[in-house]
């Protein structure tokens, strides 16, 4: 589904150049939920922006479903970390969700119906007429997820989507992601700096090095379904995996300092 080969990106040039990604190889299978973990400032956001076609990498290639990424692919949606900046405050919740559907050549009635359906699937059926500022942070991020779902992408990128909400909301949103990918067949790449989260949500966890980023670890997560915030987290495999991911991330940090 997603093939990244020898991806390199350098910001600027000369002595002040910042090498964010260096020779990163990664492939994600159709329908897979991949967690990407790495120390902060390791180029995770650069990776997302390269995949989404928002920045053109200085080297390497990204293919989505076989097609090289140029501009922004139309089968891809992004959930940004900062919902307060990615939702448009001048539009109602329903309009925010329906906005991208213009690209899908849907008429107004169908856009509205699709937005309502997406809002229902994230548990916000009654919030359509409200404005983003009238909702809590967790609800706003649900709206951002609903917007991505309504768009029906085959690949959804999530850039530290739960970084700005409290712990309880975070767990709810993690379960929402698991539930959503059960309903919609889509490939998800979730970027996070939270080790537990990467294991709890992912089918696979990839650990990135400090910048310039490359892959230092790639672990399969084989936990019994359905996952549950209490029982999964006390499962011996979970405990083992989170320790292993933790060691890899720590190793990265130790090597860097």
């Amino acid at each position: 589904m997603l093939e990244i080969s020898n991806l390199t990106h350098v910001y600027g040039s000369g002595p002040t150049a910042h090498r964010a990604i260096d020779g990163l190889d990664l492939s994600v299978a159709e329908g897979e939920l991949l967690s990407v973990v790495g120390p902060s400032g390791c180029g995770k956001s650069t990776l997302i922006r390269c995949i989404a076609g928002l920045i053109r990498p200085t080297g390497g290639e990204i293919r989505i479903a076989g097609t090289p990424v140029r501009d922004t692919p139309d089968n891809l949606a992004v959930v940004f970390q900062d919902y307060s900046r990615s939702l448009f405050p001048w539009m109602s919740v329903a309009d925010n969700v329906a906005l991208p559907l213009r690209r899908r050549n849907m008429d107004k009635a169908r856009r509205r119906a699709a937005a309502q359906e997406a809002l229902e699937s994230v548990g916000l059926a009654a919030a359509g007429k409200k404005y983003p500022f009238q909702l809590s942070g967790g609800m706003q991020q649900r709206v951002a997820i609903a917007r991505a779902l309504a768009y029906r992408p085959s690949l959804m990128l999530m850039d530290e989507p739960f970084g700005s909400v409290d712990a309880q909301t975070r767990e709810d949103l993690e379960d929402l992601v698991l539930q959503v990918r059960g309903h919609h067949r889509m490939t998800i790449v979730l970027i996070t700096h939270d080790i537990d989260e990467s294991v709890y949500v992912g089918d696979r966890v990839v650990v990135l090095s400090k910048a310039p980023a490359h892959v230092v670890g790639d672990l399969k997560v084989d936990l019994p379904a359905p996952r549950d915030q209490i029982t999964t987290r006390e499962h011996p495999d979970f405990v083992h995996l989170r320790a292993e991911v933790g060691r890899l991330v720590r190793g990265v940090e130790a090597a860097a300092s």
Partner: protein
Amino acid sequence: MRGRLAGGARRLAGLWLVPVVIAVWEVTTRLLEDTDFPPPSTIVTSMYELWFSGPPSRLFFTDEAIGNILPSLGRMFAGWILAAVIGVLLGVALGRAPVATQYVDPLIQLGRAIPPPLLVSLFALLFREELRTQLATIVFGVIWPVLLNSIEGARSVDPVQVETATVFGLSRRQQLWRIVIPAAAPKIFAGLRLSLSLALILMVIAEVFAGSDGIGYQLREAQREFETPIVWGAIVLLGVLGYLVNSLFVLAESRLLVWHRQATRAT
């Protein structure tokens, strides 16, 4: 909600000063008995006789009012709207093109520094026609706040909002109308409001120097004929008009930008 009520009450409480000032003004001018400083009651009477003693069928407007106040307001709004359209479109385009702005900025600073009243003579020579001269003066005088604020507003649109719109495949045109202009709207409105009060000033200036009707023209004529109460009356009328127009604009702005006020309050 409570904050808004308290604010409203405070604003109303400030109004007591108005009648006090008028009363002091009335008493002082009556004691002074100087024809250059007529008491407010005399000013209001002459305003009433000149403009507001018409037949009820015309809402009590006299011929003088219809022949002067309406053209003045028409010129002011026409000039302002023209400047707003040009200023917003040009400003938003420039705001999204930082390199172009760097080139154009010195020109803008220069244009803004020219006192617009000086240009009445130039425009009169260029256009040789009253209305165009007046409109050009108003447009040239009021475009700068709209232009500069639109540039600033469009330039400071949150990059995440633009990235979101790009990811979800909004065309450039859709991004302009649905993302950039709404995001820049609070700044654009600040510019429009400033321009509106400038438009009133320039309307009067254009009429005083190059008018054959309008409030500015009447002001000039009254001065020539030593009709002091009418000179004062025109000034009062302009003050009241400025206040009303600004209040209406603020009302419209607060309706249109509810999201902005609420969203900034919430954070």
